[in-house]
């Protein structure tokens, strides 16, 4: 069963991957350095498909795409947060890291709780308690269905986004 890694408010991209550790384009290296200073045990204990639950303004600050790359490469299945900073949210969708906005879950979940979710319906199950996350916008859905923004544009071009706008 996937477990929850719970974080607080205003988790910045500097906390997710500090500037001294994003001097690379190698996803695996970024994954190993994910939260290296903010939560040094993270990369060593996270298991495939675990879930991050964050507070408000998750991913604020720098536009560095290394941040969602690091989270994804560490094995995280999805990030659920009370709210996301705009650029992080868009970057995560673009590279195929599911992100779900859900306010109600935050106070009901503890670090380490069993968690499962369905990225298509936005339904999150925390140890038997169900929560409905907000559904992403139509462009995000189109990108998620294709896998990544690169996959979407490569196969269908801008028409794929123009037709949902």
């Amino acid at each position, binding site marked *: 069963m996937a477990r929850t890694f719970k974080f607080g408010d*205003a988790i*910045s991209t*500097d*906390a997710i991957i*500090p*500037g*001294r550790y*994003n*001097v*690379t*384009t190698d996803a695996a290296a970024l994954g190993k350095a994910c939260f290296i*200073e*903010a939560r040094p045990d993270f990369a060593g204990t996270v298991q495939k498909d675990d879930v991050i639950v964050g507070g*408000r*303004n998750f991913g*604020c*600050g*720098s*536009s*560095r*795409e*290394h941040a*969602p*790359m690091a989270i994804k490469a560490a094995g995280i299945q999805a990030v659920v947060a009370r*709210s996301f*900073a*705009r*650029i992080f949210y*868009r*970057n995560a969708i*673009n*590279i195929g890291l599911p992100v779900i906005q859900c306010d109600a879950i935050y106070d009901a979940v503890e670090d380490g709780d069993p968690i499962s979710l369905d990225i298509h319906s936005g339904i999150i199950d925390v140890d038997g308690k169900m929560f409905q996350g907000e559904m992403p*916008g*139509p*462009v995000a859905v189109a990108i998620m269905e294709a896998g*990544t*923004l*690169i996959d979407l*544009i*490569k196969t269908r*071009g*801008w028409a794929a*986004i*123009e037709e*949902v*706008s």
Partner: protein
Amino acid sequence: MGTLTEEIFTRRLGREVHAGEIVVAPVDYAMAHDVTGPLAIEAFRKLDVPLWDPERVIMVFDHILPANTVASAGLHKIVRDFADEFGVTHVFQEGICHQLMVEKGFIRPGGIVVGADSHSTTYGALGCFAAGFGSTDIAVTFATGKTWFRVPETIRINLRGSLPPGIFPKDLALKVIRMLGAEGANYLAVEWGGEAVEAMSVDERLTLANLTVDFGGKAGLCEPDEHTRAYLGDAEVFDLHPVTPVYRSLIEVDAQMLEPQIACPPAIDNVQDLSAVAGTALDEVFVGSCANGRIEDLAIVAGYFKGRQVSPRTRTIVVPASKQIYMEALARGYIQTFMEAGALVMNAGCGPCLGRQHGVLGPGERALSTSNRNYAGRMGSAQAEIYLANPAVAAASALAGAIADPRGLN
């Protein structure tokens, strides 16, 4: 009809555009730098198409300049090889990307510009719609010359009255962030207006537009006016105003505030009056960045440093935002003043702001910076503390070796 943002998209797309619409729009330029560029280049190569327009892609080495490790030199090589292969000619290593975008003439009122850096909002000071993106979005723009936007609603911020002596645009921006919180403008555009903005130079407006992203703003715009014309030349500036705009909210702020504002660790919205933190000892003072590294900022600092010495217990680092600013500071004697005062003057670029090159903070150290980010770990150790302030506070604090009030110093 609409906000500055709606007016810009309406003109650009040739049809009436309203907030909330999702549009695919052409952009004037797409910028990336030495850290976000390599990821954008890798994503662009996956698309396996020609570059949209080699003259509309801007590459800047600024975050790590010159390269300080083998790894960062490797990033630079990825960018250089890409520029050579695709004929990209606008490749710069003479300052911060955002300052160069403005100085080199890529930014025009009514334009749409995207950058692979969050502080791309800076260009809104000239009435351009400019937003920060990640590398994959920029890669798609490299390939197509377009990106998609959800046209944002707008918060209008009117800064009333005039700035009293010792109070600067940085203080107004921090005051607004104090009021609205670090995500107060998330997904929204911000229009900066009112008498205080009308009286500001373009340099000062760049500070406001720059800090817009630090409370979540997608873009931060000022109406182009006679200051914009003086900066760019008449031919480049056409009339662009909000026309019967409908705002998400309207915020009024009195510029006649009492005190300089300080963003205290560890968050941009942990803002206090200067008097609440005065006397806090400092290990480093950094003057520079895309927020406050321009000639007017250096002039303020030089004014305080003239004939004085910075505290020997504090590293004082000055980094002009661009070569042009550096050379102007040389011509005006500021660089000599900084060095005589005991400050370290580094080459133009991002400097210590992002903790990846010179001026890194150690555990337990405390810095005051004129930049725009004070997250734990931003400038080095996660156990270091960062205070953000205007250039005059930075100057007085460097002299005192502790957070100090510049008002009263000549």
